[in-house]
């Protein structure tokens, strides 16, 4: 996973500008046969091990993953999945990593979070930005599982506002060490880890002026002044270790600065791009598993003299779960392949996949519990634990609200720049999110008429047409709101949310169409998945249409008024008995 210079290619950023960059996502990617074989064998080894060793309800009850499980995983090599072979890892692509992670989630979410915090966000900063010396020093230990890694960004006062962290690292007079002070919160693997990627403010001189900018550091947990708090008692993923970290005059050698001084925020954001994708893959696994579990339960449960699976009200739920799972899977493995190219900007696609997959999982968990009725609510059945474990996905590694804002603003940045350049409404670029997409800006000039998907298989005619129409709708709405609000768009979250929701379902449709179209062109039958494709795409374009309509025609004023009413009252200001 060597860091290479990224180009500005981004399917979604182009789409915001009305450009359908079809060649970036067509044909739907496939793993090379060699890697597919390795992956199949790794999955087989994992399944054999996990069937014997992993007891999820026990992990939940004990709030602890047994040492032998982590040790066993380390011995099999699961702690080094994405670390290159030269440092003792397996060197898996992001796609293969995601698929393995999916399977780990299917056995236990706490275990998956522990692995993800180590192998994904805990190690990726080092993989992306580490010097050769740093890599040689730490990666072999992390690959073997001798050391466990953690990612430490969030602070008590800086959750979604990650740039607002207060931890501070000050270079000593001899310029040999940074003296690190401060604290972190909600750190997965906090007390069981050995190496932390820590983000702290540092003084950086720019144009002769001292500015406070975030830098990243590799901090060893055993250094004097480092300590971890006691594990949090959580609602779900109870077996994963989550603690606060504290830094009290920790001496961090200058050679442990990760990436350039003052570029820590970029290190964090790029690490999270990868991390989110892993999470989304885990959620896909959950969606598929829950759909199967709910269907099995429904087939076996008899009421009114027949299996409840026969009732259409149950079929409605199962069909939606299956269509969601199919779409989420299509999005995640399209995105992972974009990540594997190392030359494509996939930040939006990764955020979108995380939002869609985590919400699909949450709906699935909710519906599975509903299908199981009273039994579903009993701790004798697995549905309750799944609901608790699934809930965190809407919160961590960027809340879905922040990711929606990010999707909308980073997506609109390119068109915003374009409009500014041609002297329209914008005076300042939209600050604070993402990278500039020169690509989209360049291409948008060439678009005189509506861009469309080309040469799509006739089976997908309707879906492709809907996609084309609503891609056009996205672009015109983006332009409309940018003309209207200019840089003030960053304060209009009602609008951002709608734009983001349009983008999410358009990416879903694009991924599904690419997947099925490629299969048809490989002369394979798609008869089996067509109902899922139709169900998802139909629901998707209707949602996109609703969001588009509400951009101008909405009740945002009433929403603000309702909030003012509530915010300005100490108690709920209505009571039917005293009116």
């Amino acid at each position, binding site marked *: 996973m060597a860091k290479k210079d990224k180009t500005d290619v981004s399917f979604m950023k182009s789409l915001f500008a009305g450009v359908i960059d079809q060649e970036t996502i067509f044909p739907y990617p496939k793993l090379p046969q060699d890697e597919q074989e*390795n992956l199949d*064998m*790794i999955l*087989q*080894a994992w399944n054999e091990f996990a069937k014997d060793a992993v007891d999820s309800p026990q992990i939940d009850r004990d709030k602890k993953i047994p040492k032998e499980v982590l040790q*066993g995983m380390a011995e*099999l090599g699961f702690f080094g999945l994405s670390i290159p072979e030269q440092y003792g890892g397996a060197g898996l692509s992001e796609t293969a990593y995601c698929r393995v992670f999916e399977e780990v989630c299917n056995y236990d979410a706490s275990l998956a979070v522990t692995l993800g915090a180590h192998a994904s966000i805990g190690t990726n900063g080092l993989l992306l930005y580490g010097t050769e010396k740093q890599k040689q020093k730490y990666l072999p230990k992390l690959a073997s599982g001798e050391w466990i890694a953690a990612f430490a960004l969030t602070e008590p006062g800086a959750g979604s506002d990650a740039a607002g962290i207060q931890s501070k690292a000050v270079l000593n007079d001899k310029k040999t060490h940074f003296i690190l002070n401060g604290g972190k919160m909600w750190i997965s693997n906090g007390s069981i880890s050995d190496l932390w990627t820590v983000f702290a403010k540092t003084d950086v001189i720019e144009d002769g002026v001292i500015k406070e900018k975030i830098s990243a550091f590799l901090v060893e947990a055993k250094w004097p002044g480092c300590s971890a708090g006691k594990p949090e008692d959580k609602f779900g993923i109870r077996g994963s270790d989550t603690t606060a970290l504290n830094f009290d005059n920790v001496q961090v050698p200058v050679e442990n600065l990760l990436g350039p001084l003052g570029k820590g925020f970029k290190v964090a954001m790029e690490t999270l791009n990868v991390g989110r994708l892993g999470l989304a893959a885990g959620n896909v696994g959950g969606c598929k598993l829950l759909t199967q579990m709910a269907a099995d339960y429904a087939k076996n449960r008899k009421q009114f003299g027949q299996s409840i699976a026969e009732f259409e009200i149950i079929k409605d739920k199962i069909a939606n779960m299956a269509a969601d799972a199919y779409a989420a899977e299509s999005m995640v493995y399209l995105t992972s392949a974009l990540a594997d190219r190392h030359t494509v900007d996939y930040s939006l696609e990764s955020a979108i996949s995380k939002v869609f997959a985590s919400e699909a999982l949450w709906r699935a968990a909710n519906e599975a519990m509903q299908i199981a009725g009273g039994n579903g609510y009993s701790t004798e059945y697995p549905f309750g634990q799944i609901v608790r474990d699934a809930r965190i996905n809407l919160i961590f590694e960027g809340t879905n609200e922040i990711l929606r804002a990010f999707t909308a603003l980073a997506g609109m940045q390119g068109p915003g720049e374009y409009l500014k350049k041609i002297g329209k409404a914008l005076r300042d670029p939209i600050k604070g999110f993402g990278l500039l997409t020169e690509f989209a800006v360049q291409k948008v000039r060439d678009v005189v008429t509506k861009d469309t998907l080309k040469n799509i298989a006739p089976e997908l005619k309707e879906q492709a047409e809907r996609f084309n129409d609503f891609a056009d709708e996205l672009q015109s709405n983006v332009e409309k709101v940018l003309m209207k609000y200019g840089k003030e768009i960053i304060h209009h979250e009602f609008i951002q949310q709608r734009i983001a929701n349009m983008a999410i379902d358009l990416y879903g449709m694009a991924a599904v169409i690419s997947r099925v179209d490629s299969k048809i062109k490989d002369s394979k039958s798609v008869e089996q998945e067509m109902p899922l494709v139709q169900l998802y795409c139909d629901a998707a374009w209707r949602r996109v249409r609703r969001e588009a309509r509400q951009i101008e025609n909405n009740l945002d004023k009433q929403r603000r008024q309702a909030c003012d009413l509530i915010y300005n009252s100490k108690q709920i200001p209505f009571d039917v008995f005293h009116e």
Partner: protein
Amino acid sequence: MKIAILLKQVPVKDATLKVNGDGLWIDEDNVTFEINESDHYGLEEALRLKEKHDGEVVVVTMGPERVKESIKQALAKGADRAIHINSSGYSNPDPIAHAKLLCAAIKDENFDLILSGLQSDDLGYGQTGVLVAEMLGMAHATLVMETDVQDGKIKVKRELEGGWFQSVELPLPAVLTIQSGLNQIRYATIKGIMAAKRKEIKEIAISDLGVSDADASGIQMHKIYLPVKTKQTVVLEGDTADIVSKLVDKLKNEAKVL
């Protein structure tokens, strides 16, 4: 120590089996295959012996293309190389013919020890290992539960009936057929899986083995069929006296236990 493990691929235990069109074998479409259970234990024993005494473990398999998957799994677990007798289109069920082919493929290797599972989970003759020993002029022991190599000899514990065991010492080279459960089978490690790619799989066609009577068979398959369920439950009806007299009659005349 140079060790061979004769390894067969068989349908997974919970496979749903259907008889094929000519009624002589199962329909292999949509069936998943795995390493034969006792062969898997044999592989593990071979790997443990190698780890203790150094040397090499060679997987020897006969079967169609699909067995490569099992070969790769064995290589991922630590076997050093493999010999694959590609038997696509060959359907002779006779273990004598199989043993001849296996011997022809391995006779020049001069193995110190040849392990195989006790029997295959599909045909279940339990003869191949013993026949190979006879044809290669090597000592053999069956139903092996424990191995201990010392000074060019091997001591084994054999499982007899009724909870009895037998200790036997054999000179090397020898052939052992392994009983399931004698050790704990390891999981393939990711490193092993990656390393397996670089290991040699030597593929040999049956026609290249020079066994002129490879098609000769002392066994003819006439028919295979799914076992018919023979147990059935009969509910006796009537008043109590009636039921008791019917029950006594059945116990006397049908079950013959009274």
